[in-house]
């Protein structure tokens, strides 16, 4: 063994890591390293990036987790998670109306969100069972229509709380509803860690970690294994007596419930609800995140959820100041987000496509 050609070595490492992690993850990772080097060179505050990344991860994480039962049960990427998001928003408005505050208030709201999202999730699951093979197209447009239908309801629902309705006219919910007096960031106010002058959101990270653990455990129960079998090979599963449609409905419902919980976790970290067209394109964020993590339309693990969310958020957080220092125009980071997130979704769609 003499000295190997360094180019060959790089090529080998490249092929190996692409094989193991998939193109999106490797490319995003390299891009992230490049941006980090630039950021350090520009003298940007790294602790600030770390804190923002962790905060965004804790916000988006649960929504990304909501993709798991969908993929596992065989409905693919749940672009219609906006249905769960809407249920979460509705529960959130009920919680604010009732004046629930603090960590207890947040969990009471989640308790309201669960039955709401279970009902819509089951209806949605029933529909997806009727459209096998076209779940993603159907769910995208069902999601879009539901968001635009709810726009009408946000205007006419009889909420009264002055923090939520328009000051002028006295009816109709506002576009953004501040949560600073109710349950905005309550978990992190209760539990945080000082890190170079930055407060790390330990409370909500623990919440995200707890839900990940629950999902991990669930996938190892008998029910979880049955669901994976139904998603993996529906024909075989049906042959050994598994009710595939029921498992798919279970997966869809779980995904929807996690969508609702994920929305509330998002709003908790963000400190605001965004109603009306706010949730329209929201599903594309967790879909992109889980694909960056290395998931495909048929295979997913909890590590994909965690690594994908962190990678995507770190990239977006660090890109903003670095790029705005290179090119002084604010719109670029949004452009990067559009290209990266839709790029990975497009890659996933064309890769598993193939003559069918």
């Amino acid at each position, binding site marked *: 063994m003499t000295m190997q050609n360094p180019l060959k070595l790089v090529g080998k490492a490249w092929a190996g890591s692409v094989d193991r992690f998939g193109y999106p993850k490797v490319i995003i990772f390299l891009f992230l390293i490049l941006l980090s080097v630039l950021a350090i060179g520009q003298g940007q505050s790294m602790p600030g990036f770390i804190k923002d990344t962790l905060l965004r991860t804790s916000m988006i994480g649960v929504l990304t987790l909501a993709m798991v039962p969908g993929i596992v049960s065989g409905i693919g990427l749940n672009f219609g998670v906006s249905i769960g998001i809407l249920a979460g928003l509705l529960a959130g408005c009920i919680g604010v109306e009732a004046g629930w505050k603090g960590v207890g208030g947040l969990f009471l709201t989640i308790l309201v969100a669960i039955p709401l999202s279970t009902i819509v999730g089951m209806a949605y699951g029933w529909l997806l069972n009727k459209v096998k093979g076209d779940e993603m197209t159907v769910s995208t447009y069902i999601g879009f229509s539901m968001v635009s239908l709810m726009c009408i309801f946000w205007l006419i629902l009889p909420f009264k709380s002055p923090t939520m309705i328009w000051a002028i006219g006295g009816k109709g919910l506002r576009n953004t509803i501040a949560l600073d007096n109710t349950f905005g960031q309550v978990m992190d106010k209760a539990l945080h860690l000082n890190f170079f002058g930055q407060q790390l959101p330990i409370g909500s990270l623990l919440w995200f970690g707890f839900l990940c653990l629950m999902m991990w455990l669930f996938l190892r129960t008998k029910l979880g294994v049955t669901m994976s079998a139904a998603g993996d090979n529906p024909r075989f599963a049906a042959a050994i007596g598994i009710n595939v449609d029921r498992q798919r409905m279970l997966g869809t419902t779980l995904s929807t419930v996690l969508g609702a919980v994920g929305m509330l976790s998002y709003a908790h970290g963000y400190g605001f609800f965004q109603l009306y067209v706010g949730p329209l394109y929201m599903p594309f964020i967790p879909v992109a995140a889980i694909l960056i993590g290395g998931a495909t339309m048929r295979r997913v693990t909890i590590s994909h959820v965690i690594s994908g969310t962190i990678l995507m958020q770190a990239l977006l957080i660090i890109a903003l100041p670095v790029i705005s220092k290179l090119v002084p125009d604010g719109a670029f980071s949004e452009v990067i987000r559009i*290209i990266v997130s839709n790029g990975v979704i497009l890659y996933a769609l064309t890769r598993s496509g193939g003559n069918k």
Partner: protein
Amino acid sequence: MKTLKKLSLLDLVKKNSVPLLFLILGLLGWMASGQPLPMLLQEVIYRLSRNLILVLSLIVPITAGMGLNFALVIGAMAGQFGLVFIKALNMGGVGGVGMSMLFALPLAILFGIGCGAILNRAKGKEMITGLILGFFANGLYQLVLLAGVGTIIPIKNPEIVLAAGVGLRNSMELNLINYSLDRLIPFKVIINNWPVWVPIATFMLIGLIAFAIHFLQRTKLGQNFRAVGQDKHISEVAGIHVDRTRMIAMIISTVLAAWGQIIFMQNIGKMQTYFSHEQVGLFSAAAILIGGATITKANFGNAIVGTLLFHLLFIVSPLAGKNLFGDAQIGEYFRSFIAYGVIAVAIVMYAMKKARADKAESADSMVE
């Protein structure tokens, strides 16, 4: 004899239930809105003339079995590049419109090839892939116009370029070409002392394009589109180059969308550089479906009737919302719900039918 006639009338209603439903909805909305007829007529005529080419551009991919082409926005982007081009050179009039169409043509062909290549890798998932492709392309479009203009693309016109010399402004006045085609053959009807312009030249262009598509459908290529749309495998066996046929369908659609967007902007007279194209796919798809098209079948009648009905609803719903519920916003949300909802229902119906057919087929193969 009498029963036969009755039956056929019932059949007619059944066959056209979707457009009829929207006709009733539109008329009710009009009554609620209380809009004067000449005003409504002008709006409907303008919207028909400026949207019809975009809607027509959906027909070929539907025939080729690729569903609703949500990547239409990419064609619209090519059209807007054409408009930026004539704006940079300060061209106006019908000549300007023609130049922008000419400039957009090679771009649209290139984009169409790209779309076709990508959609060929996502067979059976064309619609969702097209949608995401549109989003993705939108990012690239913004990148090019924000960072590329003034650096790689030498455009200097301070009227459209940002003060720093790099990047295009958010909006662009198109007064040089505004109505240039619409009023090339000036014609207006006075109804109740209200002038209603009829864009004769634009309708002639639309007619020309419609005729060209009609002619195309009758050629060998048109037959291939239908064959590929019916069954890809059998077509392949029959010696049709499936992937190439699908790509040609995308190229035609993208070019028509580019031209459609130019005609659209010519009527509007002001371009939102970064937003004007975004809803093109949504509104065109909703329109053709309201006209009675499905995911697998569409014709000119669907396009014309659908554009008319969808935009009738579009015009009257804010005022109707205001008069009925005291809030124009409700009407606006209602119309966007209609747009998304119609597409969702059409896709669900198509997917259900396909899933049933798949099931029957797999049951058959199991029996064998």
